[in-house]
């Protein structure tokens, strides 16, 4: 029997082309009882290999190919001897090996040794005792060992060996930065000696130390290399490896290896040096097959930064590195049967598997006299008093019972340490005033709630604890903590590192795999396509969620002008498909951390992450979970950062304290806003789909928000539960339960299952499942769904329902609910946690718009809308957004006081009254005109027509005559505004909060330069652009130009000027003045240049900042758009009327659940209108709909329940502006 003991998977990153599962699968097919996976310098693929092999009944041996440099420091006797030998060699031959290799002309294959594979002991070329063999790799003829680095295959025979291997790899990896070249981190003989216990060593293939030594110094040198390995690992742990890939030179090496093995009394071991599972793989729909060797060749090119045409002999010579059957291997080694027999013998020695990982979660240090459980109990009781102290007696009692039940289970499962560690992190965050909130299923736990980990009362909301933790599942619980993204989260992460040491905690990895664009780009590079073609090809790989059957890649290629019939293009296409899902490199998971009792590096190798101070394990979070390693997710949530920023901004600018834990729960203004779907910028409820649901659902209390968060999910949508729920809520459909017994579970969602907990409870009630069984059901239908598992569960479910007397029809209904829902539904606890954030964001936006908007802009990118849309939305709500100004802007957006003439209403309040309308307050701060129907465009006070050019001296300009020619385009509106301003001189001044855009919005401006501006400005205001350029030498010319283009330099000088004046001045300021004039600052003066037109300003704004605080581009075209309704007009038009709408496209969506329908969001100066594009119309106008920035859409208005959308039947391009407006596409 032959067992493959040397194979690499695609987790060797560009050195193998099959997934571990594929290797295990082939192994099982070939009836091979075991197999070893040795990825390069890591055990990256080991968990997947182990789990796949376990399922297939194959023993998975674990090892790694270690980069080894015997020439590095050594202190053992045998090594010393080798050193002497090397000195001797150097004396004999003064050139270095490298020099030798480069100066020697390459030999022909015929000049090198040749051996026999085919049953012959005769060799054409005899291996001479001192002859040197030019080592050539399987991928070519070139010497593979660089700087004396070889690859040493090591196999873990025991748990201790595995731990040694992990520590050895960790030591190597931590030697250099992430992605350090192998030579830099190579293991030394000392390293190997230190961690050699239990490890079995093979002499390696053409990359191995034996081959390297043979190449350097012939058979004697080879023997010494093997002796060194014997010295390190012990004679019984060294096997002389033989591979046969039908190469002559490999056979010559084999003969030398056999001779060395005989002379040293070492066993021979046959392997095939596997790099892929099978000779070919089917790709795409299976109609194409591509050789695995081809994929490996492509990877080789990528590793060496070559194209296929220039890679030459780096590529494989043939395709023999697949998993060969025992029979095939026996035939290959018919002359050396002992090499085959040794595989079985060695396999039997390798006792270690990943079942025996030895992971232990760290014990939390508790005071003397306590144990972890008693300590946890105390902390829980303290929390209980705080959380439920003022609750009703009934709730308190229920909560107490629940907590007792949970604590009992926690004790039984020995999880107290885990809860204490999470509690410890949360406590740290609270002490440091870092917002933190547990999410996910942890919110189902009353213990978590009591410990302050979560913010939702699971007892009060009657949440199902089993969704979080159950005895049957045999899994660790999963607690995810949401933290403000950015520095605060980093502080929490660093706290964990500090507390558990660098070797005790690490981030989980995130394996970056080949997906559409990455595959398209890299395959094109390898085939030698030029940059333009690469851009075009990778652009083809859209991320439309929906794929209609005709939307094949062939068709997309054809549309983009590429002919798939051309062989090279066809090969490109096949390669793109073949590499899908193969790992490319290791990244870092956004927040998953694993912690270990003792040394984590003996459980899994650790590596440095690209971020300084971070360490990452070699497994991703799924692998960690699969192997029973507990992780804590410290997730960065943009909205948490927004909320936290608001907590600082509000006291400072509003003089009020806000406590997120004690927000008024039933604020009518908030619900009013939600019911109008005026939710741009709010957490989870801002998307187009959410907005179209809100006016129908009309949330009136917190639980409605929980439902709202959960209902717009693929699960409820695919399960067709949205409409029944809304209809029942609106009283248009009677309540109905699949079975009367389910009424208690489904009553609060009106008979429609919306949450995962309901699904679990349905199974428990209807089919008599235990909590654990129900959770098993959810997982069976979850992300990792398997047909067989689902069938088994379904049978069990039906049997249970049958027992409980549920009719077949009801059974069908229940099963349909479960199967369609389980995949994408939210747990109720998770929805509740998110609903808290949604409510908080709605509350802050409603009451503290300036602070909320500033915080939202400072934490972009996040959410559904671009900053441009957020700014326009805030302006429509009456908030003044001031432009970037080097004399006033900080790096971040700030809240500024804005003096205005006597206003009767606070701006936020006035905004509330005009929500969802296009109205904005006038320059006087008077109540905003709500009359959109008059058809006139009323400019926002933040729009430039009222403020003079570029809004930079906002206060002065608000009361000064309009002088800026750039604003002349505003016509009559400007005139009336000026009139108003003159009138306002007699009014009293008040202040309002406004938002000043920060310098972070200047594209291309480095933070370092921006901060230098702020620093210098605080010492002395700039007097001219020349002065600015002199005092902030960090500023580069292109940065100055951008600042000038967006009007950020307009207020530097005291004279009235415009952006072109600044541009004119910048051009001189950026030129070196020469030594004579160096100390003399130039004064700014007006330029001979014309002011920018509105269009030019728009283009400059969007190009320089991605947004404009001026008028919306559509406002400039409104006069010409006769018969086109504005977004705000639609609500007054009856359902079914034909309408025309127009605007800039801010979002294009083609959800997978919408059967090919496309949803467009068009923004104009009054708001956002939605359009629905049928699949047919989309096909007819594909390019138009994808490429155009502005569209005019004609169709039928759907005005149902105050939800407005236009079902399009005609689409026209619209020339409005050439400004590049970002669109959020293809969700």
């Amino acid at each position, binding site marked *: 029997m032959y067992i493959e003991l040397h194979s690499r998977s695609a987790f060797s990153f560009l050195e193998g082309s099959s997934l571990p599962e594929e290797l295990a699968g082939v192994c099982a097919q070939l009836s091979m009882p075991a197999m070893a996976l040795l990825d390069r310098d890591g055990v990256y693929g080991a968990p997947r290999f182990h789990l796949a092999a376990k399922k297939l009944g194959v023993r998975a041996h674990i090892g790694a190919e270690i980069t080894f440099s015997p020439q590095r420091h050594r202190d053992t006797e045998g090594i010393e001897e080798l050193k002497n030998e090397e000195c001797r060699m150097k004396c004999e031959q003064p050139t270095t090996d490298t020099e030798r290799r480069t100066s020697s002309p390459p030999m022909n294959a015929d000049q090198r040794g040749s051996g026999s594979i*085919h049953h012959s002991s005769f060799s054409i070329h005899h291996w001479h005792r001192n002859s040197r063999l030019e080592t050539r790799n399987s991928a070519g003829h070139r010497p593979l060992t660089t700087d004396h680095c070889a690859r040493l295959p090591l196999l873990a025979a025991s748990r201790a060996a595995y731990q040694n291997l992990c520590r050895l790899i960790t030591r190597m990896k931590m030697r250099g930065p992430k992605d350090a070249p192998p030579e830099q981190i190579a293991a030394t003989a000392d390293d190997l000696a230190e961690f050699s216990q239990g490890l079995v060593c093979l002499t390696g293939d053409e990359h191995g130390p034996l081959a390297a030594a043979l190449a350097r110094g012939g058979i004697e040198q080879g023997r010494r290399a093997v002796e060194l390995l014997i010295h390190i690992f012990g004679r019984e742990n060294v096997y002389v490896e033989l591979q046969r890939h*039908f190469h002559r030179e490999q056979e010559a090496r084999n003969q030398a290896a056999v001779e060395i093995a005989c002379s040293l009394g070492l066993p021979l071991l046959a392997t095939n040096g596997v790099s892929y599972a099978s000779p070919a793989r089917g790709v795409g729909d299976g109609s194409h097959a591509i050789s695995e060797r081809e994929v490996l060749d492509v990877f080789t090119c990528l590793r060496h930064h070559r194209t296929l045409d220039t890679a030459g002999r780096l590529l494989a010579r043939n395709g023999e590195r697949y998993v060969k059957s025992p029979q095939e291997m026996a035939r290959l080694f018919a002359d050396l049967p002992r090499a085959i027999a040794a595989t079985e013998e060695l396999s039997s020695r390798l006792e270690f598997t990943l079942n025996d990982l030895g992971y232990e979660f760290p014990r939390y240090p508790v005071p003397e006299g306590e144990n972890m459980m008693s300590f946890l109990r105390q902390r829980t009781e303290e929390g209980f008093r705080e959380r439920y102290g003022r609750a009703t007696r009934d709730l308190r009692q229920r909560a107490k019972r629940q907590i007792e039940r949970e604590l009992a289970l926690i004790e039984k499962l020995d999880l107290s340490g885990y809860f204490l560690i999470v509690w410890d992190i949360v406590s740290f965050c609270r002490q440091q005033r870092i917002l933190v909130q547990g999410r996910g299923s942890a919110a189902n736990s009353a213990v978590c709630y009591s410990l302050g980990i979560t913010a939702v009362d699971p007892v009060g909301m009657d949440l199902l604890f089993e969704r979080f933790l159950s005895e049957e599942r045999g899994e660790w619980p999963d607690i995810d903590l949401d933290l403000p993204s950015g520095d605060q989260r980093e502080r929490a992460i660093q706290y964990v590192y500090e507390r558990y040491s660098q070797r005790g905690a690490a981030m989980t990895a995130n394996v970056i795999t080949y997906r559409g664009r990455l595959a398209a780009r890299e395959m094109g590079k390898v085939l030698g396509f030029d940059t333009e073609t690469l851009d075009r090809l990778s652009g083809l790989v859209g991320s439309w969620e929906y794929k209609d059957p005709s939307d094949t890649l062939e068709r997309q290629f054809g549309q983009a002008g590429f002919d798939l019939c051309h062989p090279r293009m066809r090969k490109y296409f096949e390669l793109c498909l073949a590499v899908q899902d193969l790992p490319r490199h290791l990244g870092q998971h956004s927040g998953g951390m694993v912690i270990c009792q003792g040394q984590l590096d003996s459980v899994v190798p650790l590596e440095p992450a690209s971020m300084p101070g971070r360490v990452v394990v070699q497994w991703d979070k799924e692998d960690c979970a699969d192997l029973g390693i507990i992780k804590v997710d410290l997730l960065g949530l943009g909205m948490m950062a927004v909320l936290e920023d608001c907590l600082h901004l509000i006291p400072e600018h509003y003089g009020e304290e806000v406590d997120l834990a004690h927000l008024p729960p039933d604020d009518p203004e908030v619900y009013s806003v939600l019911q109008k779907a005026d939710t741009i910028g709010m957490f989870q409820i801002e998307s187009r789909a959410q907005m179209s649901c809100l006016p129908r659902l009309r949330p009136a209390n917190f639980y409605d928000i929980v439902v709202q968060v959960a209902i717009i999910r693929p699960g409820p949508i695919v399960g067709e539960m949205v409409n029944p729920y809304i209809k029942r809520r609106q009283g248009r459909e009677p309540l109905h339960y699949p079975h009367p017994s389910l009424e208690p579970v489904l009553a609060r969602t009106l008979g429609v299952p919306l949450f995962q907990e309901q699904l679990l409870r349905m199974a428990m009630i209807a089919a008599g499942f235990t909590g654990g069984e129900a959770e098993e059901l959810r997982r069976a239908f979850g992300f990792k769904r398997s047909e067989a598992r689902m069938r088994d569960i379904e049978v069990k479910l039906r049997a249970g329902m049958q027992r409980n007397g549920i009719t077949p029809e009801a059974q069908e209904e229940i099963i349909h609910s479960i199967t369609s829902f389980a995949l994408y539904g939210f747990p109720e606890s998770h929805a509740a946690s998110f609903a808290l954030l949604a409510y908080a964001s709605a509350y802050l936006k409603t009451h503290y718009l300036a602070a909320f908007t500033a915080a939202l802009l400072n934490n972009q990118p996040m959410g559904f809308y671009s900053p441009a849309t957020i700014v326009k939305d805030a302006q429509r709500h009456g908030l003044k957004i001031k432009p970037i100004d080097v004399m006033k802007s900080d790096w971040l957006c700030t809240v500024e006081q804005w003096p205005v003439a006597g206003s009767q209403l606070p701006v936020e309040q006035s905004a509330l009254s005009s929500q969802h309308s296009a109205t904005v307050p006038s320059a006087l701060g008077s109540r905003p005109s709500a009359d959109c129907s008059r058809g006139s465009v009323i400019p926002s006070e933040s729009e430039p027509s009222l403020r003079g050019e570029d809004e930079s001296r906002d206060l002065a300009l608000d009361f000064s005559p309009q002088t800026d020619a750039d604003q002349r385009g505003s016509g009559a509106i400007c005139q009336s505004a000026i009139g108003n301003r003159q009138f306002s001189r007699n009014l009293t001044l008040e202040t309002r909060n406004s938002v000043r855009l920060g310098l972070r919005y200047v594209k291309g401006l480095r933070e370092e330069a921006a901060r230098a501006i702020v620093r210098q400005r605080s010492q002395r205001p700039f007097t001219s652009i020349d002065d600015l350029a002199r005092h902030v030498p960090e500023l580069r010319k292109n940065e100055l130009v951008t600042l000038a283009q967006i009007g950020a330099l307009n207020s530097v000088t005291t004279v009235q000027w415009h952006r072109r004046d600044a541009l004119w001045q910048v051009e001189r300021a950026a030129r070196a003045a020469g030594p004579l004039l160096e100390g003399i600052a130039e004064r700014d003066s007006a330029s001979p240049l014309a002011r920018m037109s509105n269009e030019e300003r728009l283009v400059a704004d969007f190009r320089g900042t991605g947004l404009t605080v001026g008028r919306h581009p559509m406002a400039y075209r409104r006069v010409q758009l006769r018969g086109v309704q504005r977004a705000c007009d639609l609500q007054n038009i009856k359902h079914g009327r034909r309408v025309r709408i127009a605007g800039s496209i801010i979002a294009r969506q083609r959800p997978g659940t919408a059967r090919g329908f496309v949803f467009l969001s068009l923004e104009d100066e009054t708001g956002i209108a939605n359009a629905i594009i049928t699949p047919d119309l989309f096909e007819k106008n594909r390019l138009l709909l994808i490429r155009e920035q502005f569209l005019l859409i004609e169709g039928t208005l759907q005005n149902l329940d105050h939800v407005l959308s236009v079902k399009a039947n005609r689409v026209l391009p619209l020339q409005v502006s050439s400004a590049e407006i970002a669109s959020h596409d293809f969700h």
Partner: protein
Amino acid sequence: MPFACIFVPDFPVEAVVRAEPRLREQALAVLAGKPPLVKVFAVNEKARDCGVEPGMTKLQAEASSEVALRPRSLLQEAAAHAALLDGAQSFSPRVEDTAADTVILDLAGLERLFGAVAGIARDLARRIADLGLEANVAVAANPDAAMHAARGFPGITVIPNGKEAERLGDLPVDVLLGNFRSQESGKQKPDVQDKDQRALEILATLDRWGVRNCRTLAALPEVALSERLGQAGLRLQKMARGTTGRSLLASEPALDFEEAVELEYPVELLEPLAFLLNRLLEQLCARLSARALATNELRLRLELQNSPQRHGDTEKIDDFEIDDCRLKNQKTNSSSRMNADERGSESIPHSSFINHPFSRNSKLETHDFTDNWQPTTDNCSLYARALHLPLPMLNPKTFLKLLQLELQAHPPGAPVNKVWLAAEPVRPRAAQAGLFLPLSPEPEKLELTLARLAGVVGKTRAGSPEVLDTHRPENFRLRHFAPAAPRQKMEMPERPGALTALRLFRPALRASVLMHAGAPVRITAAIQPEVRGEIVWSAGPWHASGEWWKEDAWAREEWDVILQNETGAALYRLYRNASSGQWFVEGTYD
């Protein structure tokens, strides 16, 4: 002192139309690039109206059925450019060869000959149209103003003296950029990119300033402009005002070395043809010698009578199949100054080679010999060959011998009516062999020997071998032989191991091989009787394959075998071509 500028818009398209006048009224796109990345290189106005733009792929362009597609032809462009120069030189002796699509003439004094400048401009346009090109013609007081007007205004433009700024005022500033670039970049090649970059930066700055036409640029204050854009900005402003005062960089009249003879009776044999060629060669060499020149390229063109089917050795030149290395070898001459970036990849349709006069500009492609053949009229066809020499020569006997060898290898195949012969003039070789260098054959003799060899074995089979980096066996190619400079003797490292030499059979011997239990047991090579017999020992198989991404992917299986026959035992290498299944004996081991 008036100057006229002739500018041909969409020049690559015009060059194609000139060769195929029937395309004049059609939407036409010119393609360039290597498959599968063929893209639209240039289009005419009608094609633009159909939505075809440069940069589109061929497939996209094909979507518009009204647009005719033609491959780009440097040859046609060179010819069109030569015609442009000819047209200009027929009016004035002082002509500047500004760019492929632009020439400028000095009209000083021509009024007496041809009348008013407006009339001259009209005549120029007519003359260029007669040459098959549609051009804009502009007349102004200085060359730059004339050029900018020609590039910016369609048809004929005459700018009265002193009205330059006014007339040029409406032109976009980027019209100035071409000329600005050429002047800024000067002759220093390494600076060209930097200067181009600088020009683009200035253009970007002007765009930011809102300065988009010449009038606005002309109105900017000079000192302030100079403070901001330096001298480059001032020069650009002068161009915008039409006040630059540069002198014309008049090109020398083309060195046209072409001889022809029209025969009273068709010549059918090579010998009398050689006699004629000898006469022509002597004339050519005499003319070259008189101007102290030599030649490195001879072009022969024959008009054949009633051309029958061309025999099989005509080199087929497929559309898009001409690779870059040929283009790199292409030499520029004084009369065809194509910018490097205008060359790109060339596609030469069969029809385009010889349907215009065999002129000095008819750049044929760059193999040592190239041939073209195509019927031109009902009764005759053309035969053309180009002879490229590795170094300048001036020996009519050598030339004659080379031409004879070429004609023997590629006979015209029909009686010859007319003979044209042209020589590419170049400076003669001025090198002297080193005193201590080993003797080597005279270059002329060496060239003759190589030509003879190539005539016998084929031109791809003679030269210096160059090893290629590939697993493919026989991994070398032959480059044109050129004696290398003597190298230091390289110290070969001692290789104490046993080395075995393999002597290759070229070509490999086809063989039939009997297999048993997966190994060869008997072999029979048809051609060499000694390679036949029982195999007493074998080693293998050795598998190799590669270049799977190309159409000529290969795979083979090799064996080393000992063959026992009556003559004794010998060690051979066999291989089986995996795609054909055919066995070959590749060589024998020493």
